[in-house]
């Protein structure tokens, strides 16, 4: 599903090009729950940003369903990969329902109106994450764990075959972490999605993921299957 070949990732600014990690070769299939681990600053977030199309690879290729990521339009990409980050969202009257409904953005008309099938999809996403009781709550009234689930529900409503989560367990307590990974695991199993998670919780990863990718220093990568 995702094939990464000789990838070199980093940042380009006006003055210089900084390579963060190079010579990355990976492949992921649908139904897999992939854990991405590595020390702070090693390049996990850069890799995630490159995989989601936020930044361009310095060299090498990323193929999604055998198609180069650079040839995707923003609109097509939004129907293929969805992200969940730890950045706080909220304010401006945003309710849980509103946020999940925004996942339908790539599918709806220019005036932003949801039709019956959009609403059905939002309802289904709320149910899958069992957050139906929160639907009318303002997003900034929620706990970190609840908000994380709302963002995952948004990703489900986006109906992408790939979901990428950047350190989703960062602010969560023990129980919420396990709860979150149970949800991710069932998404892979039941909906055959490819879920890629970065985290520092190695014990947790070992328990749930089907494959782990560790970014080590000096551009070496360790891949384990579980």
């Amino acid at each position: 599903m995702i094939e990464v070949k000789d990838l070199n990732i980093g940042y380009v600014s006006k003055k210089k090009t900084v390579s963060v990690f190079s010579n990355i070769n990976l492949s992921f299939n649908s139904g897999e729950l992939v854990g991405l681990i590595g020390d702070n600053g090693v390049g996990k977030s850069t890799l995630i940003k490159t995989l989601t199309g936020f930044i361009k690879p310095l060299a090498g290729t990323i193929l999604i369903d055998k198609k180069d990521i650079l040839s995707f339009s923003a609109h097509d990409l939004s129907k293929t990969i969805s992200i969940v980050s730890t950045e706080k969202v909220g304010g401006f009257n945003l309710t849980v329902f509103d946020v999940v409904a925004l996942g339908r953005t790539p599918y709806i008309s220019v005036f932003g109106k949801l039709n019956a099938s959009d609403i059905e999809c939002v309802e289904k996403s709320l149910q899958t994450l069992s957050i139906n009781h929160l639907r009318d709550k303002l997003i900034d009234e929620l706990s970190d764990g609840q908000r994380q689930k709302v963002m995952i529900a948004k990703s489900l409503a986006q109906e992408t075959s790939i979901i990428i989560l950047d350190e989703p367990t960062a602010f969560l307590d023990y129980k919420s972490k396990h709860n979150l990974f149970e949800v991710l695991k069932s998404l892979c199993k039941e909906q055959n999605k490819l879920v890629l998670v970065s985290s520092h919780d190695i014990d947790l990863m070992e328990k749930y993921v089907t494959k782990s990718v560790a970014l080590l220093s000096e551009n070496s990568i360790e891949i384990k299957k579980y």
Partner: protein
Amino acid sequence: MLLLFFADLFFGSVNLFSIKDNQALFDTILYSIRIPKAITCICAGSALALCGLLMQSLFRNPLAGPYVLGISSGASLFVAIATMLLTSINVSGLFLFGKSMITLFSVAGAFIITLLILFISKRNKSNVTVLLVGIMLSQILGALQGLIEFMASGNSLKTFIIWGMGSVSSTTLDDLIVIVPIFILAVVSSFFLIKPLNAILLNDNYASNLGVNISSLRLKVILVTAILVGVITAFCGPIAFVGISVPIASRLFFKTSNHLHQIVFCLLLGAGVVLLADVICQIMSSHFMLPINTITTIIGSPIVLYLLFKSKLHIA
């Protein structure tokens, strides 16, 4: 809205009913003074409220607005420059040319300041910093304007200072031929920004993951804002507090994040507020003109404060 519109037609230095026997005078006052003024109120109020809403969503900052961020000041400064230029070359025959030049200058001023604010807000994302920068910009622009006024001749200075207090009553039917189409065009185009504006409420990264082209959205919002603020400022002067307070009030009264509804509410509420302010102006001062800015500030700012405290800051 309709009630306020008719109230605005009714109140003024001349009681319309007392002159209803004099048909010619009645017509003149109604058609060439009161109706243009009421339409100006609607355009100015709706336009500024819409700009405030667009900017608050784009910056995800409920404290943004054309007046507080110095965009109105930018337009003002450029109007000052244009006015002084025009009076110094003294082209009385080219009146229409003069007005359109002032409008163009005003739009350019608003555009430059909006771009500057956007540039700064991209480097420093804190709500407070953006606001502080806006206040500083207003101060600098105000000082520059003071400098120009200092060097100006007495006559152009007086025109300019009266204009600076904000007024909806100096527009003529000919002006409306310019204002109304631009206003309608800008409002209609804002309806095509609903979907990306909704998505950008999450944050820039989520929005672009949802397929929104952020830089193109920014440019479109800046264009709509600069054109509306520029045109309204050129004809009515800098009108305070409508741009910031109406979107805040609209979000507090109508608890929705959907821009389809918020745009409509802001347009109606903005028009209502400026019509009301003008009616109050007319009632309070039947023989001289009270600047509309006084009223919009007096009613605008306490409403914002009250709503802020009452709602535990949930608009932010």
